[in-house]
């Protein structure tokens, strides 16, 4: 009896060692590449570090956080990021879900559509931003001029703060909807046909089938898709840099500021253009905290709606 117990524990020990060995590469790279820099980042945000190791730096406590919160441009950036993220979040998901329904229906050429809608996602955000900049600055205007549509010919999308945000949403949706469509599409493939058929026999119309069978069945896909779009909307950077570069300028609380300087662009400008590396880092930490809170709330809400299977 005692001997048996002993062999069991030693085998357990050996097992544990094996687990550790298998875990080690992933854990080590996670620690080195993510955990360590993350905590270093939090530490640097409490100093007056300028980005150069040799120069040395002092601990300044929460000064960077206080300066950031007092900064009018940062306040505006936070606000416009939330506005943009909400609009973009809704727009991407509505478009993506509609496209997913379209390409999973029996429409002719659905394979081509599926590839086509996904394609913009393969174009880098910088290139995409320049493409849309050309469309807003030149294509729309020359269409307006050639067809006598004076509204188009005289509107510079990127000089009006509201239209510029809209332009970002259009470009962002165009880029991201195809990717999210794939997530919804995959989930739609797994909805049991029997359920839909029997609902059909019971006299449920298309909307009722969608509302009461399809959507509840693909709730896990919503959890993932909503999480991805929400976090990516909050962190939009490349498209903003190339499409509007933070512009146009606008007046806000008596100061001239950049109308589409989303928070990640603001972090970049603070850290690299104004050379306030530590303050930029402090803003990045705040963005992280907000993102975690928002993501946790969103996933717990959608998760509650998932059907346990």
């Amino acid at each position: 009896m005692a001997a048996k117990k002993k062999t069991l524990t030693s085998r357990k020990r050996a097992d544990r060692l094996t687990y550790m060995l298998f875990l080690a590469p992933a854990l080590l790279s996670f620690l080195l590449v993510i955990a360590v820099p993350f905590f270093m980042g939090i530490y640097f945000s409490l100093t007056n570090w300028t980005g150069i190791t040799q120069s040395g730096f002092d601990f300044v406590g929460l000064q960077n956080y206080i300066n950031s919160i007092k900064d009018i441009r940062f306040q505006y950036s936070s606000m416009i990021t939330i506005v943009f993220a909400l609009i973009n979040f809704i727009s991407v998901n509505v478009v993506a879900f509609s496209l997913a329904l379209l390409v999973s229906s029996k429409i002719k050429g659905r394979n081509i559509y599926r590839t086509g809608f996904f394609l913009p996602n393969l174009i880098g955000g910088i290139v995409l931003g320049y493409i849309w900049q050309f469309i807003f600055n030149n294509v729309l205007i020359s269409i307006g001029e050639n067809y006598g549509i004076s509204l188009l010919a005289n509107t510079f999308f990127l000089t009006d703060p509201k239209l510029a945000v809209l332009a970002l949403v259009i470009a962002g949706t165009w880029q991201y909807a195809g990717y999210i469509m794939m997530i919804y599409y995959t989930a739609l493939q797994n909805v049991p046909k029997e359920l839909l058929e029997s609902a059909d026999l019971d006299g449920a119309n298309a909307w009722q089938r969608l509302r009461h069978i399809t959507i509840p069945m693909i709730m896990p896909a919503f959890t993932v898709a909503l999480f991805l779009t929400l976090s990516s909307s909050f962190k939009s950077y490349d498209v903003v840099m190339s499409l509007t570069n933070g512009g146009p300028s606008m007046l806000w609380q008596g100061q001239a500021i950049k109308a589409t300087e989303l928070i990640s662009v603001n972090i970049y400008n603070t850290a690299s253009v104004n050379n306030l590396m530590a303050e930029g880092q402090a803003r990045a930490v705040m963005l992280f905290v907000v993102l975690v809170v928002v993501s946790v709330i969103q996933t717990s809400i959608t998760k509650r709606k998932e059907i346990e299977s």
Partner: protein
Amino acid sequence: MKKLVALAAMLAMALTVSACGSNGGGSGNDGGNSGTDAAKTLIVYQNKAEVTTPMQDYAEKWGADNGVKVVVKTCTGSCDYGAAMKADINAGETPDIFVIEGITGYNLYKDIMEPMDGEAWVDQTQYEFVQDGKVYGYPVAVEGYGLAYNAEILEKAGVDPKTLTNLPAYEEAFAKIDGMKDELGLTAVVSLVSAEGSTWVLGNHNFAGYLSSGLAYDDTSVTDMALKGEVDAARLSTYADWVELLFNYTDKKMLTVNSNDEQMAEFGAGKYAFLHQGTWADQPVLEAGGTFKMGFAPHAPLGAEETNGLFAGAPSWYCLNKDSANLDLAKKFLNDLCFSEEGQKMMTEEVGLVSAFENNTHRPTGPLSSALADWIEQGGTAYSFTNQYSLPDGFNMNTLGPIYGQFALGNIDKATFIQMFADAIATLGK
């Protein structure tokens, strides 16, 4: 449930951290495999696109003669040199020769900079970077700007560029050319942009008119006042007149949505009589077909008072890393660049820059650089090229930039423009 929340938190963390990481990274264009055989590698990290290929070829030959592998790395355009340098320094890969663009760069890197007093090249130039009585920077070239003009269009319009030395003269000339736009095939008189991302030119080059026009080359009085938060109200008022004049004679599309690329290309295509750019615009202007004769006229930010100088000076300097394992080779590299026939030719005829060295008789061929070289040869007046760079980083583009933008969009009038400039400058005194 718990697992999912944990996963979400982890994902968010991973995504934010990587996003922030890449912000600081910058995308350096690595000219070769740096890092290998460190003792025998000399890394030159420079920031001019046009220098890249000629210097790589030159450095390869020079390296072969001196038994060292020279790696020329370039960071230009959308690449952020400051961010990329920070990344390299923190990675322990500080270049042996790097670039500063003025006092800001000096303040960032002063701990790792090697003084170069007594080097042979120092006697051949008046543009070296000096701080606290020590020479720290080798001038890359002389660059300059005023209001570049298309000499053919001015001639057709009957405007003599030599008369363009104050605001009333410009007002008259602009009105005259504007009236002949269709005849001359022009879109507008001045090619100037104010869109976000392109505000460097206004915030630095144009603002230099307020800081330095009409003053002696080393006169920093107006800049010093600005750093204390004080404004010279009379200067600011005439400066605003000048900005207003330029904006009034630029078409809305160019002024509010176009980028620097379009600004230079359209001038090259002959669609504008004036271009608010400097010698560095040679290449894009030529590529757009701009082979006509060009020249520079002085900015007129002082109202009726005459201004007859261009803003000219060294735009950047090569500096040495004092911890370099190849310090002597790096010094030799710079001296050879100044004294050898190949080095002199490379920087001027091949790259197209105006040399900062008196012993270099080679001249660039670009139309705007030639105009500046002529100006220097004729002993023309020069105003400070660097005063605007002593203002805090980002002030010119991030703080002043949007004010120009609002003025250009017509959302604020001249009085508000002046007030907002005064307010912005006042924040510098805090």
